[in-house]
C-alpha cells in the first residue's frame, strides 16, 4: 500500500515557518546556540535552543500549561501540520492515529525530578508524569481528541523512521484515514553531558560536516500527516540495526539496497551532524547511487535526534515543492541503534 505526506509542520531553532526556515537551511545559516548552565561545579554546555514563547499558542491548552518543552514542541509542530492539511486542530479528530517518536523524552523534568529525589529525598508529583516517554503523545491526543491508536516509539534518530513505518503499517492494517507522525527533542545540560561522554557532541558554536568533532544537540519538533493519498509519496526502508559504530555504513547500505536499482534519487537531504555518521552516510550513499547533490539541514537546525529524521523528510518535501525534480533520498543513521532511509517523491 502506498503512503503519502499530506501536510507538514515544524518548530526549529530558526523559526516555525516552513519556507523561511528552509531558506536558511539552503543558505547554510548556522543555528543560533545558547550556553546551558551545568550542575553545581560542572562546566556549561552549548546547545541550540528554541525560545519557549515560540510555542505559546499551544501552551494555553489546559493539558499543556505545565507540560515540558518536548510536549510543547511536539504539539506546536502537530498543529502546524494539521493546519497545512486544512484539518481543524480543535478536534475531536476521528479516524486518525498518532505516532510520536522520541530519543530522549522529557529530559528536563526527569533531571529536575531526580535532582529533587537525590537532594530532598522525594520528587514533585507534578513533574513525574511529564518524565514518561508517552506524555507528549498523551497531550497531543487530548488536544486533538484522538481516542484510538496512539503510539510512542523511542530510539536514536532511527526512531523517526520507526515512527513513519509504524504509521504506514497502521494505515495499511487499520481503517484510519490519517496518521499524524510527530517527534520532538528538548535540550538540557545533562543530555549534552551524556552525549559528551560518548564524544558525540561539541561545545563549539557550529558543527562542521565531516569533521567528527561532534553534533550540536537541538530543541525541535516536527510533524507530518500521512494518508493514503496526497502530494508526496513516501517510501520507507526497514531500519537496520548496528551493534557498533563501525557497522553504521553497512547497515545503511543494507537499507539502501531496498531502494536500488529501482530508484535513482536526484538529491539527498542528509542526516550528517558532525559525527561518525557523516562519513558512514556519504560512503553508503555514494556506493549505492554515486555522488549526489546533498543538503545538510543540521548545520542550520542543530540535531534534534528523533525529530531530525522528520525534519529531513519535511525538507525533502520543500525541495520537491520548489524544484519539481526526481525523488529525494533521506538517509538516516542514528547514533547508537539503527540506520535506514526514506525516499520522497511526487505522487
Amino acid at each position, binding site marked *: *500500500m502506498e503512503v503519502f505526506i499530506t501536510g507538514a509542520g515544524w518548530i526549529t531553532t530558526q523559526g516555525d515557518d516552513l519556507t523561511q526556515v528552509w531558506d536558511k537551511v539552503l543558505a547554510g545559516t548556522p543555528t543560533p546556540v545558547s550556553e546551558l548552565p551545568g550542575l*553545581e*561545579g*560542572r562546566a556549561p554546555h552549548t546547545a541550540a535552543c528554541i525560545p519557549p514563547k515560540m510555542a505559546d499558542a499551544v501552551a494555553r491548552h489546559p*493539558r499543556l500549561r505545565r507540560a515540558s518543552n518536548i510536549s510543547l514542541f511536539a504539539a506546536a509542530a502537530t498543529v502546524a501540520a494539521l493546519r497545512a492539511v486544512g484539518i481543524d486542530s480543535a478536534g475531536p479528530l476521528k479516524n486518525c492515529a*498518532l505516532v510520536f517518536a*522520541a530519543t530522549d*523524552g522529557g529530559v528536563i523534568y526527569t533531571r529536575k*525530578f*531526580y*535532582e529533587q*529525589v537525590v537532594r530532598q*529525598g*522525594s*520528587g*514533585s*508529583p507534578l513533574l*513525574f*508524569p511529564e*518524565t*514518561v*516517554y*508517552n*506524555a507528549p*503523545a*498523551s497531550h497531543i*491526543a*487530548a488536544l486533538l*481528541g*484522538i*481516542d*484510538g*491508536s*496512539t*503510539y*510512542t*516509539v*523511542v*530510539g*536514536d534518530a532511527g*526512531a523517526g523512521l*520507526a515512527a513513519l513505518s*509504524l504509521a504506514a*503499517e497502521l494505515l*495499511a*492494517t*487499520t481503517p484510519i484515514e490519517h496518521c499524524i507522525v510527530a517527534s520532538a527533542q528538548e535540550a538540557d545540560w*545533562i543530555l549534552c553531558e*551524556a552525549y559528551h*561522554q*560518548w564524544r558525540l557532541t561539541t561545545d563549539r558554536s557550529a558543527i562542521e560536516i565531516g569533521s567528527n568533532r561532534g553534533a550540536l544537540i537541538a530543541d525541535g519538533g516536527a510533524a507530518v500527516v500521512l494518508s493514503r493519498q496526497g502530494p508526496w509519496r513516501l517510501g520507507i526502508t*526497514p*531500519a*537496520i*540495526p548496528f*551493534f557498533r559504530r563501525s557497522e553504521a555504513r553497512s547497515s545503511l547500505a543494507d537499507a539502501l539496497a531496498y531502494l536500488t536499482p529501482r530508484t535513482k534519487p536526484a538529491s539527498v537531504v542528509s542526516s550528517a551532524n558532525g559525527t561518525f555518521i557523516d562519513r558512514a552516510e556519504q560512503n553508503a550513499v555514494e556506493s549505492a547511487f554515486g555522488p549526489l547533490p546533498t543538503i545538510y539541514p543540521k548545520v542550520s537546525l542543530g540535531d534534534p535526534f528523533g525529530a531530525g529524521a522528520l525534519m529531513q523528510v519535511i525538507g525533502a518535501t520543500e525541495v520537491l515543492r520548489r524544484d519539481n525534480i526526481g525523488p529525494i533520498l533521506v538517509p538516516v543513521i542514528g547514533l*547508537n*541503534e*539503527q540506520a*535506514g532511509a526514506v525516499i520522497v517523491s511526487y505522487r
Partner: protein
Amino acid sequence: MSPTAPSQPANAAIVAAGVVSPLGRGLEATAVALREGRDCVTEVTAFDVATARCHDAGQVPDEWLERLRDSRRTRKLHRASLMMIAAMRELRAQDAGFVPDAVIIGATGGGMTFGEACFRSLAKGGADRRRAAWLANYNPQKPVLDAQEDAGFRAPVSIIANACASGSNAIGHAFQLIRAGRCEAILCGGYDCVSELVFRGFDSLQASTPEKIRPFDAGRTGLVLGEGAGLFALENLEHARARHATILGIVSGYGISTDTHHITQPHPSGIGPRMAMEGALASAGAGAESVDYINAHGTATTFNDATEGLAIAQLFGNRVPVSSTKSMMGHALGGAGAIEAVFSLLAIRDGFLPPNINFTTCDPAWELDIVANHARPATLRRVLSNSFGFGGTNASILIDAAPPALS
C-alpha cells in the same frame, strides 16, 4: 516485509516464549510459582527506600542474572539487557529455527539505574571513568540490541513506549502485521527494571502502597513495582506449520484505545478499558462469551481497578474469572503486558487460573468472579489480557489455545 497483504487474514501463532520475572526464570519455574500463588514481592535493597511510602517491589534476584555475564561483551551490561538475553535464550532454545523479520518490544525505562548512577556521580563531582559505560547502556533500545546480538539476529527494531501498556501494544501490533501479511515472523514482548526514579515517581503520586498489593480488593491501597522480561516468537501460522514448528498458542485479537481524560487518571466511566477490550473482541470476530479468563491489568490503585472492574463487569458480567497476577510480582510497567501474556499462555497450556493473592474483601462497586488467593483448575480456550497506562493508553490482547491438531 511482504509488500502486499493476503486476501485472507493470517493467523499469528506463538511458536516459542521466554520469560524472567520475580516469579521465576523460565516458563516451567514460572508456571509452578503461578499455580502456587507465590508472593514474590520483597523489600527493595538496590536503593534507599527509608523515606518512601512504599518499601517493596517484585525483584528478579541478581544471582539469576549474574550467570549471564559470561563474556567480555556481557560484563558491563545493564540488568535489563541480561533479562532480555535470558528470555531470548529460553525462546531460542525452544525454536532455533525462528528468525524474525522484525522486532517489536515494549519498554519504558531502559537502563534507568545507570542514568541514576551517572547523575549521582556528576552531582558528586570529579572524574569517574564508569560514566561512559553507564550511559552507553542506558537507552531503552540497548537491551533489545544486546539480546539480538546474543541471538545472532539483526532485524529492524521498534521500541514502543506506551507506558504500562507497552508490552501488550508490542504484541498487539506484531499480531496486526502478521495478520495483514506484512511480516512472517516477529519477535515481540517487553521488559522493564525497577529503578529509583520510577519508584520515587509512583511514591510521589501516592500510587504505591506501604501494604500488600491487593488488586480488586475493597481495601486496596495501591501498587508495588515489579520487573522482568517476556518474549513471544510470533509467526504466520502457515509459515510455522510449513517448517514444523510447535504451536503453543494463537494471538487472535488486539484492541487499543486512548483515554484523554487525564494524564495519570482514567475516565471514571471505564470507557478507555472498555474500548480496548471491545476492540480486541471485534478484531477476533468474537463475542464476550468466548473468553474463559481475564488476566486483568489490576494494579490495585483506587482508580485503575475501579474503572477496569467496571468495564469488565459491563462487558462480561461475572461470568468470566478474573485475576491480577501483579498481586504476586508487582507491576513491571512496560514489561507487564508481555510478561502477563506469557502467564496467560502458561495458564492455557497447564489448565489453571492464576490466583489474585492478598484478596480479602470484594469491592461492592461491581460483581466479579475474582480468582481469590488460590489457583483453580480450568480448561481455557481463550484468555483476554489487559494493560493500561499513564497518558490514557489502553491495550487488550486475546490469546487462544492452539488447535489440538497443531499443538
